[in-house]
């Protein structure tokens, strides 16, 4: 597969760039972690307390090149350092705790939106210009344009604070202990509904729009007419001949969307107090917790690159025309 060889090169450059940026960006923020820690202490920052914190963490006064070398060494051994905010927990500990919840949230939202979006897109392309299409398609554009923060605040206020149908925060009822039982799973489910609903409209809108336009092109193809001529049922033509082939552009979109979903999940997690990567990144930024910010950005970059890579491979498998040298 020569395709992966050249592609790998591109990915390696992207990764190297990400690693360097990841080192530089947090250092451009004003203030040191010691300052941030003193700021957090607020009224408790007595002169003695400030001295104690300085004695403990020191000012970061290593030359920048030495810091960079240490950073690379750490990366190689998957030692991302110790969190400042959650000291003495390591970055890996902090992130692994949060990653699980964000992956759960993002994957659930993606699958849910993919199913709904593709269905809506397929149906509205099939009945193009019909009543369904005239309602759903503009609605998708609207959904696509509403920022997650507005949806999050609105549904939090309506369904959690006012109606109290759903919990206002957490990933599961704090009084439960995690375990494989119905009560716990139910609690996780209930707590995930609103966050997933926050992340979904944007994705559904995106998938519906892409699916619809791609499906319209496919439906004009000769083999669709051929399928109808064979006397196949509408459903069979729509899904086996139409939707199946129209899915490819949606797949590309899925990989591109990943970054956007992570972005949306930051806002969502903050609003719903959901213990994922977004909330962690937010608190780490406020606390100037460089090691955690770095680890987190790296993780997200790698996840996005990895997803793109995966889609590249799947693409080749799904559509033989895209394989290099095939023509």
């Amino acid at each position, binding site marked *: 597969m020569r395709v992966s060889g050249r592609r790998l090169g591109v990915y390696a450059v992207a990764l190297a760039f990400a690693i360097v940026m990841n080192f530089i960006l947090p250092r451009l923020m004003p*203030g040191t972690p010691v300052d941030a820690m003193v700021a957090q202490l607020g009224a*408790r920052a007595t002169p003695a307390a400030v001295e104690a914190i300085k004695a403990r963490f020191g000012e970061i006064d290593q030359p920048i090149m030495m810091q960079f070398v240490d950073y690379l060494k750490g990366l190689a051994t998957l030692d991302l350092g110790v969190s400042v905010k959650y000291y*003495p927990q390591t970055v890996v500990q902090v992130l692994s705790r949060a990653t699980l919840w964000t992956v759960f949230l993002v994957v659930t939202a993606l699958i849910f939106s993919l199913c709904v979006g593709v269905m809506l897109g397929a149906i509205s392309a099939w009945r193009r210009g019909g009543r369904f299409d005239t309602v759903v398609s503009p609605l998708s554009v609207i959904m696509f344009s509403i920022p997650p923060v507005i949806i999050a605040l609105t549904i939090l206020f309506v369904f959690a604070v006012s109606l109290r149908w759903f919990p206002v925060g957490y990933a599961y009822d704090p009084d439960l202990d995690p375990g494989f039982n119905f009560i716990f799973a139910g609690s996780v489910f209930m707590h995930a509904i609103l966050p997933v609903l926050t992340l979904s409209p944007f994705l559904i809108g995106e998938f519906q729009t892409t699916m619809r336009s791609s499906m319209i092109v496919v439906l004009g193809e000769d083999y669709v007419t051929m399928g109808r001529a064979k006397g196949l049922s509408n459903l069979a033509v729509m899904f086996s001949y139409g939707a199946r082939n129209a899915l490819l552009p949606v797949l590309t979109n899925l990989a591109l969307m990943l970054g956007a979903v992570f972005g949306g999940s930051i806002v969502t997690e903050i609003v719903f107090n959901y213990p994922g990567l977004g909330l962690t990144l937010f608190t780490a930024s406020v606390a100037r917790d460089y090691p955690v910010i770095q680890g987190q950005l790296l993780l997200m970059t790698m996840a996005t690159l990895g997803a793109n890579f995966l889609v590249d491979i799947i693409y080749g498998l799904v559509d033989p025309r895209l394989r290099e040298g095939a023509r």
Partner: protein
Amino acid sequence: MGLDKRVIRSVSARAGSAVATALTAVMAFGASAAWAAETVLTMHIEEQSSWVQNFNPFDLAGRRQSTMDFIYEPLVIFNANDGGKPVWRLATSYKFSDDLKSITYDLRPDVKWSDGQKLTSADVKYTIDLMLKNPAVDTVGVGQTVTSVEAPSPTQVKINLKAVNSEFPESLADLAVVPQHVWKDIADPVAFKNEKPVGSGPMTEVRRFTPQVYEQCRNPNYWDAASLHVDCLRLPQISGNDQMLALLPEGSVDWIGSFLPQIDKTFVALDPQHNGYWQPPAETVAFEMNFKSTNAGNLEAFKDLNFRHAFSLAMDRKSMVDIAGFGYPVVNLHASGLPPRFESWRNKAAEGDKDAFMGYDTDKANRILDDAGYKKGADGFRTTPSGKPIAFPIIVPNGWTDWIDAVQIAVEGLRSAGINASVATPEYEQWRKQLLDGSFEVVMNSRADSATPFQGYYQSLSTAYAGRLTVSAPRYSNPKLDAMFDQYLKSSSDDDHKKIFNDIQVLIADDFPVVPVFNGPTWYQFSSKRFTGWVTDKDPVMNPEDHDNNRMRLMHLLRLKPVQ
């Protein structure tokens, strides 16, 4: 095929109903399932996105803020609402030596650690020695004040001081005495997380700890168990004010320390019978001018008492409180800036006509400046009597929205008096840096908090501290005042302290080094649904806050009784 489908359908139907049952169960029990027999007090102290099990009292930033007082009992607490009188806890008394160079604490003889071992003077000595050896755990600054510690008897600790300092016991108020038999085996007391603490306070047993909630329960060997009517503290993780507001309708939190906008509507109205609050004024917030400013025009103005008086007259304090502060702060109309909670220290001689410049009167401000020779230029702004321009930004940390609004109101007032002031909002870190390196011009700033008013004035206005702390930003230096501070530190009688502090108030009201504007609120809300005994404005015996900087929260906890 048909059979398969039916099986699948019935299985999924059953699974569906099971999930439904589980969901109903979760929704029905939700918050109130666990406690029937024991009394659990739900508290909100700090905002975090996830709990980390860290009860190391020396880790100021990382420790859970229920560590002090509830796990590690103080030696003695000074109650600011009671004239700074001592509330004896692990200690029963202390006595200075005649030369004031050492102090001896008597310890309560019957105190045990939560693991059953006796708490003795060896533990106190061990703790202070640990701090002297290791500056990173010196959270009370004994490195600056103490030369050595002795333990003449199991219930006596003698601390030798570097200099005469009658305020030393107050600096030791934040000391957490740790058990020697546990800590002597800890290789690195800084990185130690102390997940299963052995403590001397009422709530030492960490029963449950998850990233979303933790519970701290009754110390089986608590010396003051007779006063303790709460079995467990429960602390749910809450990441911010918004989260708190969203949680309030559930009515599940008993003791809250949050900023709640429009509190009568957002909190009290939810359950008027039980929900209450008292947010008494705390430290004085003042506008401080930099007496070491490198800008010649500004410096000339700042050093002129007339200019400072005019500055004060341009302050619309009431709008700052009502508009910027949601009505929560209290206007401070004393030229001495004395906070209201130190009422018992008040010197009437420092008030009256000395407070003449504390109102809002831009006409009078303009008149004073005209008379003092501050002429208006073509741009409508005044210059100094010697003709130099005056122009300064007032700095306030980015994001401190209520303070920014207050500064904006101040700037409007100053501009209507012809003073070219503006607002600058650097990041907190930059703000702090400017205060410490002296590159700012004017700042709105709060004074240091303490149990007696002395410490706040001493740290803000003495030459010894000038520029060393954020609270001493103005770099004010007055030999007369320094002499009074010194005299205060060298006397140990309460009467002398009162007398000297009376003089300090008069001097400050006369020389008017900073412009006091208001006193910020404390944050305290409660629900009497499950517990009674809450401190209220009708019974203002102590600072009611549950935050980590208020030692009196221990006494507040011991007042609470479950509703039968």
